[in-house]
């Protein structure tokens, strides 16, 4: 009912002959995509009333009374990519499911623009459909994280609800997961324009800060930032308690050992799903090889046998040499 009312209001506003007329100024999506998106989302047409501007990089702003028009950039933070949106976890949603119906008026009023935004827990918390993702624990971890101390920080700073996908439990290529997750961190930590919206701290040079890491590029490609920068969590798949920088892992053997923390972090989901024998932490071998963590115990035993076998033969040879020397 609420949705119908919202749609009615949007239509009313658009037909009201408001002073401002906004025209689409982009490339129309492929017809087959539109058909697919309509199948995915019954509110597709309603959403288009927002995406006609917010789904385009540029739009034309016209004052029909004064006869003035200008081409404007759509501010990146308010841009929603249709392909990402209809590919994300919230693909079946109407814009007004989360945003105020007051956005139907244009220019949008300040009160609407400053509306409190939902956080993940508002919809997903205490809901048995999402019990397996344990949003309650995610909320607790987040509230204890260093991010929670930053004013105006929210779930959305890392997880864009307009494009968010479930990656950790669904991708088969760990590299894809690493890239997706690290891009979340780097979107602020390697982009000072975004970073300074939230803090007065000076610019961070991620590369020079991690110069101590041998094979830095390989580390960045193979593991996520959160492997070292969060506290391991037993109850949720992806740890959310981001630690202060001085508490980040710097001890190589935390990962480079048979008791590797990667099994409780990056390979947590896979390690829950499959266990193989022979290699320590064999799951890691699906993609990579971590010195000290991926040792093969059988090869280890064979090496010890060969080594002690050689020492035994040498010992026997020495024994007979000593006997011979005594007989002289």
């Amino acid at each position: 009912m609420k949705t119908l009312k919202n749609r009615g209001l949007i239509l009313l506003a658009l037909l009201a002959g408001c002073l401002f007329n906004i025209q689409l100024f982009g490339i129309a999506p492929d017809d087959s995509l539109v058909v697919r998106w309509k199948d995915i989302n019954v509110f597709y047409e309603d959403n288009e009333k927002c995406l006609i501007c917010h789904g385009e990089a540029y739009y034309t702003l016209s004052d029909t009374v004064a006869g003035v028009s200008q081409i404007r950039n759509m501010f990146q933070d308010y841009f929603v990519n249709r392909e990402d949106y209809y590919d994300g976890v919230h693909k079946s949603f109407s814009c007004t499911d989360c945003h105020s119906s007051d956005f139907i008026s244009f220019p949008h009023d300040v009160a609407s623009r400053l509306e409190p935004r939902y956080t993940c827990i508002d919809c997903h918390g205490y809901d048995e459909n999402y019990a397996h993702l344990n949003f309650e624990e995610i909320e607790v971890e987040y509230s204890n994280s260093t991010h929670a101390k930053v004013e105006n920080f929210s779930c959305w700073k890392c997880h864009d609800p307009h494009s968010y996908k479930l990656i950790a439990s669904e991708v088969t290529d760990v590299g894809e997961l690493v890239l997706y997750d690290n891009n979340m961190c780097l979107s602020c930590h390697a982009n000072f324009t975004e970073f300074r919206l939230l803090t007065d701290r000076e610019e961070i040079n991620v590369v020079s800060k991690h110069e101590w890491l041998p094979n830095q590029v390989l580390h960045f490609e193979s593991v996520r930032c959160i492997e070292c920068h969060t506290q391991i969590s037993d109850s949720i798949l992806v740890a959310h308690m981001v630690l202060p920088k001085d508490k980040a892992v710097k001890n190589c053997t935390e990962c480079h050992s048979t008791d590797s923390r990667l099994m409780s972090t990056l390979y947590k989901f896979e390690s829950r799903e499959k266990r193989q024998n022979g290699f320590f932490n064999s799951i890691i071998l699906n993609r990579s090889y971590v010195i000290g963590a991926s040792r093969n115990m059988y090869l280890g035993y064979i090496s010890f046998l060969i080594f002690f076998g050689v020492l035994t033969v040498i010992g026997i040879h020495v024994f007979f040499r000593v006997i011979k020397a005594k007989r002289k």
Partner: protein
Amino acid sequence: MSKGLYLYPKWIRFWHITNAVLFLILIVTGISLQFSGLDEPFVLVSFKSAVSWHNTAAFILVLNYVLFIIGNQVTGNIKHYRSNSTTYIQDLIRQANYYRRDMFRGEPHPFPVTEESKFNPLQRFSYLLAMYAGMPLLIISGILLFYPGMLPREIFGVSGLLIIDLVHDATGFLLSIFMVIHIYTCTLGSKPTTLFKSMVDGYHHDDH
């Protein structure tokens, strides 16, 4: 009194001692890396230090190996690694039998050291294998591990890094075993220290 045959010129002795020291560093740091997370005696060096020492020693080892290859070609020392014998296998068995049995019976060395042939058949075979097969394999796999971007992500569905690391570890292990046997056989001179002395002054002091 004659000092004996001058078989080990300065460049060989320099290469040999450098190789030995570097190999010991690489063994200690390599084991520390492979068994990281465990306690002594496996881990003698911290992971971070082991990475730096292993990489530095390996870099010098490569230069030293280049010196060895060039030196062997230029001075003709490579002739000692080659064999024209038509009885190659029999010679190997004869030498093995000497170590196994004949030396305890007081029989003479089957292949006395001469200026033309300073290695016995077993030495020639094992040194050739170690220096012209083992070392290149160890160095190439080590370089690939140092620049993992050069490696294919997967080889036959298995991590490229894993395969190369196994090659590197296995070769390093076999060369370490070679070194243990090499050091032991060097005690088989007329006195246990005689052959080591040769690598200090360059002269072969034994009468065989």
